[in-house]
């Protein structure tokens, strides 16, 4: 019982926000985020079924990643967003947490780490 409560509280603490804000025209504007197929996408992607938007399409096929040449590792997910012909946006939650998103020409966005890990999965101890 106690363990269940801890798990529930833990999941609430790390719940992904359903709304984020982005800096636009000198002020922050809200962006609604929806989850689909394990990806966090801007809601514009999910207005039609099946899902059609460039952000979602970008997750289908891996692209050869460019290298970090600046002397440091840089930011792998942001670099990969550029490799996908997207541009990086920093979205902010109500509690000031920053999320990297990848913006595409049609205005759709996907969480940059979702995009990266879709093609280059993490290492996990089993």
């Amino acid at each position, binding site marked *: 019982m106690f363990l269940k409560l801890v798990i529930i509280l833990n999941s609430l603490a*790390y719940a*992904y926000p359903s709304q984020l804000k*982005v*800096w*636009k025209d*000198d002020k922050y*504007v809200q*962006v609604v985020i929806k989850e689909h197929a394990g990806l*966090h996408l801007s809601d514009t992607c999910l207005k039609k079924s099946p899902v059609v938007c460039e952000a979602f399409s970008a997750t289908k*096929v*891996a692209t*050869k*990643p*460019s*290298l*970090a*040449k*600046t*002397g*440091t*590792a*840089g*930011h*792998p*997910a*942001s*670099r*990969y967003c*550029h490799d996908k*012909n997207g*541009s*990086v*946006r*920093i*979205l*902010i939650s109500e*509690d*000031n*947490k*920053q*999320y*990297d998103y990848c*913006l595409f*020409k*049609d*205005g759709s*966005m996907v*969480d*940059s*780490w*979702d995009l990266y*890990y879709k*093609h*280059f*999965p*993490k*290492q*996990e*101890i*089993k």
Partner: protein
Amino acid sequence: MKSLVIALGIFAGIESSAQIYGFNTFDSSYRQNGTDLLVKNMPPVRTQDTLGVCYAFSASAILEHAICKDEKLDCRNLSNDQRPSVLDLARYATSPTKIKDKTDPNSYPKVIGNRRTFGMDIIINMFNTESVSKESCAPFDNIVSKAKSLEEQRSDEEKMWLQFRNAYDMYKIKSKDCEQCALDYATTTGKDLQVSYNLKTNNLEMLKAFASATYEEFLFRALVPENCGKIGKRIRFFTPDKKIGVWPLEDTKKPNYDVAIVKLKEQLTNDRPVLVNSMCTLERSTPECAQTTSNGLESGGHGLVITGYRKMCNKSGKCYDAVKVHNSWGQAWQDANNDGWVEAKTLLDRTDYAYGTFSWIEPK
């Protein structure tokens, strides 16, 4: 036998260099064992975008934590007037021995992205100068997030930092043949950059930026207005009651993981976040952290902050040390990696335990 599953790129033709090494998470069979050591009141994680300034972000996290402790602030809600500017901090990433007047912030090179990239130097130089520009003077996320319209198609496909690089390179080419043409170019392009990226630098400052001797200097002058040096635009950081802790103190007798984890836990027990100067994220971890690929030379050094320690065990009694990483790769990286809790030894072994692998701020 260590049952580490390394997931490989799932598509043929993708080089293994895309993988980030050193951050091994635990599957759901592992649970926390015992209580953890956790630094309280850390600021929210930020993201460095594609600019290679992890060292400035990690130093900023350490400094913000110290400022919050001093001034009894809730670090989760700092305004941009209360936190250090990461762009201004970046220029403190230089050896203090090369600086004429270490206490004068103006003595430090006005550059972003020089080759010496250690967060520890930034902390040392913050102790020397006791001041840095406020984030509100050159807000990093506003510059990066500046979008004309989220919906409108991007007519300009140039990537932000590449656009800055190209602008500077083109100015240099033009200035070789025709000074007036170069000035006209700097005026027009400077204005474009100001509008496109919400820069707070004025027209004259942009022209001065173009006249910089190096790209790194151009970038700093373009992004950080000159008035960020004025007293009202700066954060004071009082140090008489503090000192910098550094470990290990020498390079000759390199310690091992067992010594490192004890040192780390000692700081965390005292509520001190620990700056890890550099760990290697490439497949093969070497002190220089660079590897040759078919696309050229790839680099993979990364600076970060450790804010917690715990033991993780599974039902069969297999246990690992875990540390909590406060990374500059945004909240989504934290979320995707169990809020930053990763296996400790793999990460720490990638620091090479060189001089100053760990640094922190402690009372005198």
